[in-house]
């Protein structure tokens, strides 16, 4: 017989929850990372500040979260051609609930092509790049090293876009950063230098994800924290696309005839007798 396994650790947790974040004590209030939700937060701080606190454990200042809000606005396009938004539009045309459609679209942005993954990878890249720069590696060498790490990728995360070249959000975000008095930190300075180098060599330019990666890095956030902060970044644009198709006839969003699908499989055939 197998030796009895010591389950003391699990036994102590049966029916008990330990929280390092906070919680609600009925009659006392809601605690959150050492603050009182009702006394310290409601009416005093922004929703975005609490979002960052819940994602990272740190309460940022209002200027930074005003910038973050601008970043979220920059990802809230009501264009139903964008993949996550299109899922919201399909939800509207099928008459799902707004929550189902919006969360399905937000979940789709957990993607390698846009949304979460490029930002998480972008933060890792720019933080690595600054470390290498401080070790006197040239920008060309830093880029070559990154290409070697991801040989099949063909581009640097944060410095290319799938649909268009360039990104209209960069000047708008830079204008906002300056207006809010947020300094241009070492990561952002380096990001623009890398962008200039890549643009000269490939014609590609920094995108919003590359910009935000550097900005978050300058404000002390890790790649993991960045991914948590932007979890719902596309949800407002998804919602708009849901509302648009939900208010039109059902299934009228991008209808397809049978012949609109180009079938490339096996021709119709007879099932073998054994099945």
């Amino acid at each position, binding site marked *: 017989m197998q030796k009895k396994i010591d389950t003391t650790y699990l036994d102590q947790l049966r029916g008990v929850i330990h929280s390092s974040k906070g919680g609600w004590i009925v009659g006392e209030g809601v605690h959150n990372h050492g603050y009182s939700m009702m006394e310290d937060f409601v009416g005093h701080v922004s929703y975005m500040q609490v979002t960052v606190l819940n994602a990272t454990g740190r309460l940022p200042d209002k200027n930074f979260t005003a910038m973050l809000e601008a970043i979220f606005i920059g990802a809230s396009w009501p264009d139903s051609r964008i993949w996550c938004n299109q899922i919201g539009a399909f939800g509207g045309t099928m008459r799902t609930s707004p929550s189902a459609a919006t969360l399905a679209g937000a979940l789709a942005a957990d993607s390698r092509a846009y949304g979460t993954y490029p930002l998480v990878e972008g933060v890792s890249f720019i933080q690595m790049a600054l470390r290498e720069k401080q070790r006197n590696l040239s920008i060309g060498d830093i880029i070559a090293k990154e290409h070697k790490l991801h040989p099949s990728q063909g581009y640097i995360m944060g410095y290319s876009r799938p649909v268009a070249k360039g990104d209209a959000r960069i000047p708008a975000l830079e204008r906002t950063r300056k207006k809010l008095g947020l300094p241009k930190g070492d990561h952002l300075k380096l990001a623009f230098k890398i962008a200039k180098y890549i643009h000269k060599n490939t014609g590609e330019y920094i995108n919003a994800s590359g910009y935000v990666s550097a900005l978050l890095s300058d404000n002390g956030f890790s790649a993991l924290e960045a991914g948590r902060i932007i979890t719902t970044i596309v949800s407002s644009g998804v919602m708009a696309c849901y509302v648009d198709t939900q208010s039109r006839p059902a299934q009228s*969003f991008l209808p397809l005839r049978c012949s609109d699908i180009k079938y490339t499989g096996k021709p119709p055939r007879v099932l073998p007798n054994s099945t």
Partner: protein
Amino acid sequence: MQKKILEENMREGAFAKHLSSNIWLEEPSEDNPYLAKSCHCHGYDLMELMDKCSYEEMLLLMFQGELPTPERKQLLKSLMVALANPGPRHPATRSAMCAGVGKTDPKHILPIALNIMGGDHLGAGEVAKSMQFMHGMPKQDMQNLVKNLISENPRVNQEEDWVIAAGFGSHFGGIDPMAQAIAAKLAGLPGAGKYLRWGMEFSDVLLSHGLGWRIPGVAAAAFLDMKISGLKPWLGIGLFQLISAPGLLAHGLEYHLKPLSAYPFPTDDNYIIESHAKKN
């Protein structure tokens, strides 16, 4: 935090101390009480079920607590085959394709598509509403019922499908031949009961109005005929999502392997921003 007396008091005794289940029994291992050494589904040993039971039987056992008759098992098997793929043009499938081609983490493809499949138009929401509609309807006179439904649910416009009752109406403006064929095939099985038979009669009356079965109605009638004990419409929601999952996943994964450019992206000329939505 300063302790204050707020307008809140914990309700006493409002919550259970333990979870409970009629469905699943796990017998703990001698050496580790967190690991099960055997599992029973409604009393049947999982190892024995693996030997003797089909997936359809397991599914019905799970929900109704007893193994199904061979007729009901065949009915579910045929329904599961018929509805295993909503097809590549269905909005839920296209959500899966969007997630796939958009390089969404593949673990999210199915949950995304199932979320969309929950819709009230051709989705699980319509299945539940159709089950509610059909429950009790078979006793009414068919001609009168259709007449009343048409007067209560007049056609809104030519662009929109005319659904006079959940699960019955037009699809893309016409009668869906696949929904009629699947319903007829299921209604001919020994496991078909009063709901599928009633639906066939109902759809015959609807034909002259250019209406008929819609796929959610077919699923709803078949679920009702399976006579799952204590069957409620919301069970139909989940079952419909479950049985449509293979096709949703297959189409999503097919696109996951393709480049972003393999999925149509309408040009700006074909993306018309209506004037009220445009900044002049």
